[in-house]
């Protein structure tokens, strides 16, 4: 009986994890399972040769990390990926990282490889956990194409070399995180703030380091002072933690007139706002933050939030376009692509309304637009065209394209 119950518990756990996976995980891959790859257009040389759809696009399987709980950044990102995968005849396979550690990420990637994924697109996990080289080795050994997103690599940093030396590396997309934090800090400077506090990522986070650099630049540009910072993950991972942090800042630094949330906004912002409202300081302390939040429109309308930068939800999509073209034997470039994509800056309530209407829809790029980026469907589409699409990404671009469709 006891053994049976232990087994039952283990099964429940397995099923709960399976429930987090994509909607069609249970299906057998329709791609190249068990078949010899036929293409060799990419550097790695092996592409799927599975069934093709009505557009002539070959079926293949893409592995990604499970997005976990929905938030205003991961939600639109994965919604866009799911929509694009459907259009491109790609089976999306989610794997949960059991723990937020190097080992957890490596195990998850091994699971993707074990599940016969033809390609893998990862966010900044490998960079944060310092396992880019290990990922390169694993993918090269298994013959699986891989891309990164939210990951800036530079010559000499080791990660760049790992990617460039990997036979199966396709691309990385990244945003200028120095710019994002700098934009937030400068906005506070323009609003007349002089004494700031910061909420950020825990130490050792590569993205956090870049954002800190941006904050520092802003402080120098506007001669502002950073009074205190909070990075304690036991606080920054909950909304009540956010309120505690803000209460502590208010208690300790009555002169504080600005707050930069350079990380964990999705968790802490509502608590920060609650604290400001309770202390009736919403007009005295200006707040800017990175990463979109589900209540940003309301906060911008009430004036408790002064600016938010985010919308970096399409980098993985660009990686997918590159990989899908490669899988279909029509690579857009023979080079390993390093693409910088844009943030969306919301400095007013009106901006937020525009984002809500046109950007926060899960299909910033429609199925038709996605198919048009495939050389098999649109032979005239080039790598330069893709770079133009990336470069154009902005609030104006989203609105223009949406209105053209309408």
């Amino acid at each position: 009986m006891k053994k049976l119950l232990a087994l039952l518990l283990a099964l429940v756990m397995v099923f709960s994890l399976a429930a987090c996976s994509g909607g069609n995980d249970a299906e057998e891959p329709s791609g190249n399972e068990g078949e010899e790859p036929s293409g060799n257009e990419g550097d790695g040389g092996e592409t799927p040769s599975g069934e093709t759809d009505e557009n002539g696009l070959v079926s293949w399987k893409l592995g990604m990390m499970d997005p976990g709980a929905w938030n205003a950044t991961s939600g639109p990102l994965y919604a866009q990926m799911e929509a694009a995968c459907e259009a491109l005849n790609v089976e999306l396979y989610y794997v949960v990282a059991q723990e937020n550690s190097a080992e957890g990420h490596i195990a998850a990637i091994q699971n993707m490889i074990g599940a016969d994924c033809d390609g893998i697109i990862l966010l900044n996990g490998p960079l944060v956990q310092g396992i880019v080289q290990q990922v390169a080795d694993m993918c090269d050994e298994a013959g699986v194409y891989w891309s990164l997103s939210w990951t800036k690599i530079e010559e000499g940093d080791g990660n760049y070399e790992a990617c460039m030396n990997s036979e199966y590396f396709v691309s990385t997309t990244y945003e200028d995180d120095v710019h994002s934090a700098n934009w937030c800090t400068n906005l506070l400077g323009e609003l007349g703030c002089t004494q700031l506090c910061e909420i950020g990522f825990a130490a050792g986070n590569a993205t956090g380091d870049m954002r800190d650099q941006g904050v520092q630049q802003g402080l120098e540009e506007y001669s502002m002072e950073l009074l205190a910072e909070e990075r304690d993950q036991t606080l920054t991972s909950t909304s009540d933690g956010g309120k505690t942090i803000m209460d502590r800042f208010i208690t300790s630094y009555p002169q504080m007139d600005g707050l930069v949330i350079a990380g964990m906004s999705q968790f802490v912002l509502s608590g920060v706002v609650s604290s400001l409202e309770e202390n009736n300081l919403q007009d005295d302390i200006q707040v800017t933050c990175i990463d979109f939040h589900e209540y940003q429109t309301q906060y911008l309308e009430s004036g408790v939030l002064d600016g938010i930068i985010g919308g970096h939800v399409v980098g993985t999509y660009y990686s997918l376009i590159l990989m899908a073209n490669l899988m279909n034997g029509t690579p857009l470039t023979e080079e390993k692509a390093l693409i910088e994509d844009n943030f969306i800056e919301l400095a007013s309530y009106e901006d937020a309304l525009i984002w809500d209407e046109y950007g926060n829809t899960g299909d910033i790029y429609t199925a038709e637009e996605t198919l048009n980026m495939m050389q098999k469907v649109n032979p005239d589409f080039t790598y330069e065209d893709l770079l133009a699409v990336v470069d154009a990404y902005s609030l104006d671009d989203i609105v223009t394209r949406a209105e053209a469709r309408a």
Partner: protein
Amino acid sequence: MQKFKKLLTSIGMLVVIPAAVYAIFCIVRPDAFLTSGAVYSVFLQSCAACVLAWGISFSLTAGITDFSVAAERILGTVLGVILSRSMGIAGLVIGCLAVAIVCGVIKAILNSMIKMSSMVISIAYVYILGAVGSIVQGTNSMILTSDMCVLGKSPAIWIITAVCGLIMFLLNHYSVFGANCRALGGSNKIAREAGVSKGKTEGKAIIFASIFAAISGIMATSYGAGTVAQTGLASMSIIFPAIIGVNIGLLLTKWVDITFGTIAGVVTMNILGTGLTAMGVPAQLKDTFTGAFLLILMCLSSFLSMKRAEKVRRQASELAAQAAGAAN
């Protein structure tokens, strides 16, 4: 007179740690700490953590380490926030308590059947509850509007904390359940030989922890105006401040009831957190300071215990010598 002296000692021991820490920060940053607002803020921050700490105190005393109450709390708040959209504050309360009761009962039943380390099983629960929380959340907004946050504001938050504290005190002092938990924590074998049912007592402690975690979830969600589902082991970070609070409370049990000792522990940690923020200590060093503080506290406690044992031994040998002298 003896009773009065004991009461004074208890009060002294209760306030000595938080007061000492507070005094240090008053010296360093008097402008920030010598204000009623600072004290109020620290106590307000401590309410939800105190209730969570009380909840897990019986389990910890009985020897059960259950990390999953935090994941359970998050799942409850996720459901509660969704229900609050249609049912208002009642929805939040119902969601949290319903999850607590269901999870608590299931965990209690499984605990009596699976003979395995509670810590290991609780990690499995954390994964399951985290995944379920994420599924339940879906794309629902997890933010509470200001009018829904009444239970996290004064006076409601004080009243809830006081009532929970009273229940905790009564159960710990006057109930068989409280005594059984202490007996199990002291020695499993002796407790069982004395007729204490391990399964039932642990089961009750697990359900009690679940319910108090749900109450703390209601308070924390109302206090911070929202919640977010957390997958994997991310939710575990919530439980550690409460465990630290209980452990400081346990250190003080020689002098004060664990109910009050836990308050002292949680409040002390919040004073420390606020103080380190006020001092502008770099984030990387805060954990070092907190760890060092806990180590000093443990060492001090061990030292005092040794002193006390030595005093008892000395008194006993003196008595024995006197008795031997009288016999001669």
